[in-house]
């Protein structure tokens, strides 16, 4: 009973903080510079990791799909399967999960440290809302940076899938590319990017929320960082399902 109560209490706090942040959307102009800085932090600094993971993701997707379909389906469908799988599901979800691990924990640790060193109190005494000053730029930057990273992830994954299928002799570049083009639907790409935007909001907001909820000292900061990553990953998967039903169901 106690666990259910504390879970509901935490969910209430999560939603309440989100509403408080939304309230400050009208003041977004005041944090333009910080948004650009955060896009750099969330987006550009995550790029090497996303590129590395996407390259292997594409190769694995290609080899595994070929293994499963080669006795039953013409290999022209390999490109279609990999491209659709990457754009709809793998690109946004894997990018979201990877960036959640890197960024969510970072944001929670940063804001958590600010909390335990009274910097959040200092903001409040100066009449500056942390929801506007800290949450809004990070969440907005996450919302913009994730689709950008996902586009790059999609391109790298599809190209690496195409390369490995040609390199291992499964099929050639032309057949793979023709298959990918033949069954392409704009909805596949834009649906995936929309998901990525939502994931960006989730992971940066989770980090911010658990950061500001930090209690105690260094141990509290560690707990917040862990909670932020776990919650981000869970919510990304839940919203992946919900948005999937909404767009492709």
């Amino acid at each position, binding site marked *: 009973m106690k666990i259910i109560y504390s879970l509901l209490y935490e969910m209430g706090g999560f939603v309440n903080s989100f509403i408080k942040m939304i309230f400050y959307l009208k003041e977004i102009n*005041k944090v333009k510079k910080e948004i650009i800085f955060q896009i750099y932090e969330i987006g550009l600094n995550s790029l090497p990791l996303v590129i590395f993971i996407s390259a292997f993701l594409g190769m694995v997707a290609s080899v595994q799909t070929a293994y499963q379909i080669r006795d039953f389906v013409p290999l022209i469908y390999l490109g279609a399967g990999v491209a659709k799988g990457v754009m709809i599901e793998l690109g946004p979800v894997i990018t979201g999960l990877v960036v959640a691990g890197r960024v969510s924990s970072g944001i929670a640790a940063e804001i958590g440290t*600010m909390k335990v*060193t*009274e*910097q959040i*109190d*200092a903001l*409040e*005494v*100066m*009449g*500056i809302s942390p929801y506007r000053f800290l949450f809004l730029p990070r969440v907005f930057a996450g919302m913009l940076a994730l689709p950008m990273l996902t586009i790059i992830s999609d391109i790298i994954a599809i190209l690496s899938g195409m390369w490995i299928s040609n390199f291992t002799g499964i099929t050639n570049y032309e057949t793979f590319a023709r298959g990918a083009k033949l069954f392409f639907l704009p909805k596949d790409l834009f649906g995936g990017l929309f998901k990525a935007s939502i994931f960006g909001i989730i992971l940066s907001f989770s980090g911010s929320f658990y950061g500001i909820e930090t209690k105690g000292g260094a141990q509290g900061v560690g707990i917040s960082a862990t909670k932020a990553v776990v919650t981000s990953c869970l919510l990304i998967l839940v919203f992946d399902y919900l948005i999937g039903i909404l767009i492709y169901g």
Partner: protein
Amino acid sequence: MIRVKDLYVSFEFPVLKGININIEDNEFLVILGKSGSGKTVFIKTIVGLIKPERGEIYIDDVKITNGNIKETLKARKNIGFVFQGSALFDSLNVFENIALPLREHFHLTKKEIEMRVKRALELVELEGIEKLYPSELSGGMKKRVALARAIVYEAKYIFLDEPTTGLDPETSLKITNLLKELWGKIKGTFIAVTHDFGFTEEVATRIAWLKDGKFEFIGDVENFKKIDMKEVHAYFMKTF
């Protein structure tokens, strides 16, 4: 003037149990008391960082304990706070730290902001360090930058949480003299929480002694010294 009426604050246990005090304009009030007696809780409650269980707080006749956010924010424009650990923003340099409240609440030009920051740094005797980051400053310098940030927007009430704690005797003395001088110059109301009786003797116009969640004594330094209590004598023994 700040008026506090029948203030109660509790966490898992009661901390403040019916505080009553009027803090007059332009006075330098020093709050003394044992560790854990609720001194910091008291000043954080006045500035709205801690929600009281009950009681009333008026800042310049505006009641800030009725949950009206607008009134609280308005009152906070008159409040500067120097935290025990200075609470400077690590990601901002000294200039940006001090300029932050000006940029947020006042419609000033870039030049005006620069002038005000420069003036505040002059007042705390730290000219020329605008581009340094908090990690590059010593403990004493951080306290002075935090003080500059508290006075830059000409706040009427300056709260100081343990302003000399954690500093070597020389820096501590420097901060004490600086605060005394500053109080004389800017004609504000200073409210400090401390264990340092040397500091108290030097700056206080009035002392409030917090014990068991209530003010046991409110009066001047000379009368405080006359109190025949073990805890009070402990202060003098540390000092002399």
